[in-house]
C-alpha cells in the first residue's frame, strides 16, 4: 500500500514513459463504454494531447505487446494495452468529429456492449 503522500508508481513499461501523463486518465478503464464516457467528459485539448502522443507510435506499442500471450499479459503490459485502447475513443473525437461528443447525442451517453464469446481487455 502506498501512503497518502507517496504517489502510486506507474507500472507502465519504461520505454513507454511518454504515456505516463495519460495513465491516470485511461489506464484504469476496463470497458469500451467506460472509455466512451471518458472521451465525452474530457476537453478536446486533452484528447488531442493524448492522440498526439500515441497515434504515431501505435506500431511501437504493439511491437512490444506482440511478445506476450494476449490472454496472460503481465500487469505492466496490460496497463499499457488499456492506455492504448483509450485511443480507440479519443481518435473518434480527434480524427472524425473535431469535438469530444457525437453532435446532438444526449450527454452523458452510454450504450450496452457485449463481445459474444470473447473477453476484451
Amino acid at each position, binding site marked *: 500500500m502506498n501512503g497518502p503522500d507517496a504517489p502510486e508508481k506507474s507500472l507502465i513499461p519504461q520505454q513507454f514513459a511518454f504515456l505516463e501523463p495519460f495513465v491516470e486518465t485511461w489506464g484504469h478503464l476496463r470497458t*469500451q463504454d467506460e472509455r*466512451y464516457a471518458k472521451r465525452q467528459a474530457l476537453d478536446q485539448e486533452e484528447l488531442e494531447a493524448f*492522440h498526439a502522443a500515441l*497515434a*504515431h507510435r*501505435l*506500431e511501437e506499442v*504493439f511491437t512490444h*505487446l*506482440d511478445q506476450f500471450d*494476449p490472454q496472460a499479459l503481465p500487469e505492466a503490459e496490460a496497463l499499457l*494495452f488499456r492506455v*492504448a*485502447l483509450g*485511443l*480507440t*475513443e479519443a*481518435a*473518434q473525437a*480527434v*480524427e*472524425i*468529429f*473535431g469535438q469530444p461528443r*457525437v*453532435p*446532438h*447525442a*444526449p450527454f452523458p*451517453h*452510454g*450504450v*450496452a*456492449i*457485449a*463481445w*459474444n*464469446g*470473447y473477453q*476484451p*481487455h
Partner: protein
Amino acid sequence: MVNIEEHMTKARDLGLENDRVPVEYYTSAAYFRREQDMIFRRAWLMVGRVEDVAEPGDFIVRDVPPLKASVIIARGKDGKVRAFHNTCSHRGVALVCQDRGNALTFRCPYHAWIYRIDGSLSAIPAEQDFPHVDKAANGLAPIHLDTWAGFIFLNFADEPEATLPEFLAGLDTMLDGAPFDQFPFSIQVSDEIDCNWKNLVNAFNEGYHVAVLHNKTLRAAVVPKDNPHLHYLDIKQFGPHSAGTVPRNFDYDPQAPALTWVYAQMLPTSAPDVAAINEGRAGFYEHPGINRLKIPNFGTETITIFPNISIQPLANGYLFYQFWPMSEGRMRTDVRIYSRHAPRTLREEFAMASTLAATRDVVVEDMAMSRLQQIGFESGGKKYQQFGQNEPLLRMFTRDYEAYLAGGGMPRQPDKAEAAE
C-alpha cells in the same frame, strides 16, 4: 459501364404514391397497441443466430420488447432448436435467469420444478400435492420457431398465418446460400432511445441523409461523386421486404494516423478488401443475389426484413440492426457487427474496438436525429411527414405497415382459406 442514374429507383417506378404519412403513426399509444397485435403478434420476428446455440444444451434468453416476452431458445439433445416462454408452469416465474449457457435441465429458483432442455416438465418436488397436474401437458409454453440462413425467427401467433418461407416472399431465394455462416463472431451494441421505432426503420431505408447527418463519419467513405444523395440502386421488393444496392468510394484512403494504423491491422467490417474481391473470396460480394448491377464500387446490399430488421452484407462481414418498440415514444436499437473470428491478437482487439467505436458513433448519429425527430413530432405543429421520390422504401414500409394494421400484409394461404369455407 453502368449508368447509375438509370438504376436510382424512384417511388414512382414502384407505383408508390403515398408521399406523406400521418405523424400520429409515430406518436399515438393507440397505434402502438395496434402494432403489438397486428404486426408483432403476426409477423415472423428474428431473434438470433443458430451459432448462438451451436451445441446440444446451449441456450440463450432473449426478450421481445413490444410483446414483453422473455424467450428461452435452446438446442435439444436431438439437435433441434426450440423456443419457449420463460415462465414456470407452477407459479409463472421467469425461471432461466442467465443470458446464455449450456444445460440439460432448467430448474425454477422458486420451488425447483425441473424442465428438460426440450421444454418438457421432468420433476415436481412433493409431486403428490399436485395430482391435478399432468406433467406431459405442463411443459414450458412453446413458441413457433423456424430458421432461414442461420437466422432464428419466432412467431407469436397461436397458428402462424404464413410459414417462414411464405413470409420471406422470395427474399430468401434471392439470398439462398449467402455466406452469413462465414462470419460467426459478433459484437453487440444496444441502446434505448426516446423515439418511435419507425424513426430508425426509416433512417436505415434511405441514403438521402448520409451526406448530411453522417458528414464527418461516413460521407467520405460511402458517398460517390456520381450519386451525391446516396440514392439506393436497383431496389427489389419481396412482399414487405426489400433489398437495394448501395455504392461506396473505393478510393477512400483515410490519412488520419490512428485510423490508418487500424486499417493496416484488420480491415473494418465495412471496408472493401480489394485483394479478396479480386481473388473472388470476398464473402457476400460473390453472391449472385447481391449487386446484380455489378457496379464496380459496390458497398453493400441493404436488406430490410419487415417489420424491424436491416442487414448490410459487406466484404468483411455484415452489420445487423434491429429496432424494437417499447412504447410509442421509446425503443431499443440492437446493432451487431459480425466478423470472421474473435480477435486473435491484441492488434486485432484494438482494431475491432476501433471499428466498434466508429460503427457505434454512426448509429448514435442516427439515434440522436431520431430523438430530435420525435421531439418535433410530439410538439404537434405538423400533422404529416413527407417522403420524397428518392425515399421509396419509406413509402413501401408505410404501405405494408398500413396493410398489417388493417389485418392484411401476410401472404395469402389459399389452401387454408378454402378449407375454412
